């Protein structure tokens, strides 16, 4: 137990925490945009799975990581179009439709993997990059500035998404249709198209998150995400629909996850209890949501389909 609290171990935990936070962050930032527009997507995990397979297969076939990431995003976009049609055109109940999307992604990604690839085959992986100078800072450098491109991108997206939401006309429209779509409509803002675009952005980012996951691991398997996308949805609540809050939540989850891994590796948690320890993020989610319940207000029109009458 004592050697857990050495500086080098803590740096390792922090570094892998930041790495694990990447996937949560990309998916949750995208979902933040969607939810701000009033559309809840419980299918994030399914979108991530299908996108991850798309990215993995592209990486396997072409060894081109850029192309793989792009394919991941495109699969996400496509799923976004499907989800937008379901929720905006047919105005289906969002909670149930999202679960449908999840189950589709889970099953279809597994089917494709079994049919096309079959046995787990390692693919190309994202290389670790060091930020010049900053990476040389003792300890901190290793923890914060030696990561793959996706990690840097995910954290760079935090101010970008905040700017999009709070400084652009599109962001203002997103917040308006998520809060009072009737008001936006009465001023000539198209609730449909604003939500449509918000859903596409959210799903594209979920796709990118799936790509980031598979390209970090350099492999794919059935249910690769293990419910990570659901935690990303919870993180949007946790972060009170604000990009910075979402980032803090993602970091917290990443670090807790990294800590559990470290404790297992050092056998501080016995092997028999490791499944129990793997529940940590889920328990944390429930605790966080209970603590936060009622303290922050969700967008008023969240999950409410819009029509003029």
């Amino acid at each position, binding site marked *: 137990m004592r050697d857990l609290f050495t500086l080098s171990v803590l740096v390792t935990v922090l570094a892998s925490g930041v790495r694990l936070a990447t996937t949560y962050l990309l998916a949750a930032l995208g979902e933040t945009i969607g939810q701000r527009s009033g559309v809840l997507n419980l299918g994030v995990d399914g979108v991530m799975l299908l996108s991850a397979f798309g990215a993995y297969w592209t990486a396997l076939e072409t060894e081109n990581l850029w192309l793989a990431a792009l394919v991941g995003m495109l699969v996400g976009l496509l799923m976004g179009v499907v989800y937008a049609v379901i929720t905006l055109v047919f105005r289906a109940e969002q909670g149930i439709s999202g679960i449908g999307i999840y189950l589709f992604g889970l099953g279809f990604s597994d089917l494709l993997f079994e049919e096309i690839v079959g046995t787990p085959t390692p693919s190309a992986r994202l290389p670790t990059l060091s930020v010049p100078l900053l990476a040389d800072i003792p300890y901190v450098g290793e923890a914060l500035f030696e990561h793959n491109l996706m990690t840097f991108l995910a954290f760079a997206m935090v101010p970008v998404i905040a700017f999009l939401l709070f400084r652009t006309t599109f962001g203002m429209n997103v917040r308006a249709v998520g809060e009072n779509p009737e008001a936006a409509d*009465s001023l000539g*803002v198209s609730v449909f198209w604003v939500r449509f675009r918000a859903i596409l952005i959210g799903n594209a980012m979920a796709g990118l998150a799936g790509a980031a996951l598979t390209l970090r691991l350099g492999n794919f398997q059935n249910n690769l995400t293990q419910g990570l996308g659901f935690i990303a949805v919870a993180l949007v609540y946790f972060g009170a629909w604000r990009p910075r809050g979402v980032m803090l939540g993602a970091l917290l989850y990443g670090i807790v996850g990294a800590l559990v891994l470290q404790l297992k590796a050092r056998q501080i948690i016995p092997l028999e209890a490791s499944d129990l320890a793997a529940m940590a993020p889920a328990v944390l989610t429930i605790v966080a949501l209970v603590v936060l319940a009622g303290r922050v207000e969700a967008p008023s029109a969240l999950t409410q389909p819009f029509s003029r009458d």
Partner: protein
Amino acid sequence: MTDRANPPEADDRLEEGDQPVPLLEMRNITKRFPGVVANEDVSFDLHAGEVHTLLGENGAGKSTLMKVLFGLYRPDEGEIRLRGEPVEIASPTDAIEQRIGMVHQHFMLVPTLTVAENVALGLTSSRGPLTDLDAVSARMGEIADRYGLSVDPSVEVWKLSVGERQRVEIIKALYRDAEVLVLDEPTAVLTPQEVDDLFVVLRQMTEAGRGLVFISHKLREVMDLSDRITVLRNGRVTGSTVPAETSRQQLAEMMVGREVNLAPDKPPVDTGAARLVLRNVSVIGDRGTLAVNGVDLDVAGGEILGVAGVSGNGQRELAETVAGLRPAEAGSTVELDGTDITAANPATTRSAGLSYVPEERMRDGAIGEFEVRENLLLVNHRNRSFLRGGLFDNERIRQHCQRLVDAFAVKTPTLDTPTSSLSGGNIQKLIMARELDSDPTVLLAAQPTRGVDIGAAEYIHSQLIDLRGRGVAVLVISEDLDEVLALADRIAVMYEGRIVTVVDRADATREGLGLAMAGAASDAE
């Protein structure tokens, strides 16, 4: 087809010589919904610089006509002309482009956005994809100076008072340079003084050549503000007039289509001892702040106590606390005929003799999806006389409900009709029937006639006066000052959670009460 349906071209030119072309003409508008004709052959016009009032009861078709004008509905028949030219208005965007503005009854504001963001919403930004809130704020300042409509552009709308929110709505329309401005029940949420202020702004707007469509059912205000009045009933125009040639009584009868009694008769009643006693009642509201602050009130048997005040000054919280739906703070006391019901739950307050007609009738008063029969049974559903062998005795229940429906003139096709398909007035009568059936000693009625047609309101008022005659203590909470003045024996005014004044009806003046409602004076005499 009437003459106006197809005027010869020559007539138009003739009119142009005599009188300017109307700013707006809606000709022979018909709008049908499945099973109802909301507007039937309705014609309406508006000249620059005038206030033309659309008067009618709920469901008379005022809102439908204005939604047609604003591009929210497409008419089935008829045409709209602006400045003499026929126009197609297919969406709110078209309406705004045609310089038609609308201040909706339920504010169309996004509470989490700032005032400037609400104004800018839907407009093209001068900075391309980025917002240009500084420029918007600057132009808002010009409008504010010109019309005396100042609101801080950088504050979020949820922090504003109702009066300020309305100002934002008017600024939104002026910012888009609306020439035709529709105001749908704009005074419903204002104090009498705020109404006066609003009317000053509106007159400035007509002087600047804009045309206003004023929708209201408050006859006093209609007489005050209008240049012309058009009355709708059941989707049809029943008459047009000017204030100088009509009276409130006559307008009311045009709206309802029969004789109405605007001032109910109140026979004198000997008041008994205080039945409902509130001492130092304080209540925390939804926002976590003190919504009711040290309220003392007594209501005697045979008396109607009216609580006047602008919405949001603690009336709802006070009512909920008395009814046992919201906890009071320590030190508060609510007594009913000497029984302490301060911390009681609704079942206990009911058995103590309290009946409650809540403000939000579809949220707290009735269940929309339930049938009429089920809603009538709600309070009594545990009453053993309606049970047989532990199950509902439907035969008895039907008899009981039919008796209530007949006694209270609830218009419903059957006892099994879903309650939500009844009109607001009939739902309110249903709730009154249920609440009065238990022979209460105290009746608490919040906004008893809000959104209710004149006929039903008349009936509900007569029921309340009847209860008073039977020695019941009646506490009426209402935002409608005319209603309070018509019903109450004593009037209390609530402002920011406190009772700022209590006066006898005979000593009360509209002006004094209005000042108290705005928190200005503690003396309403």
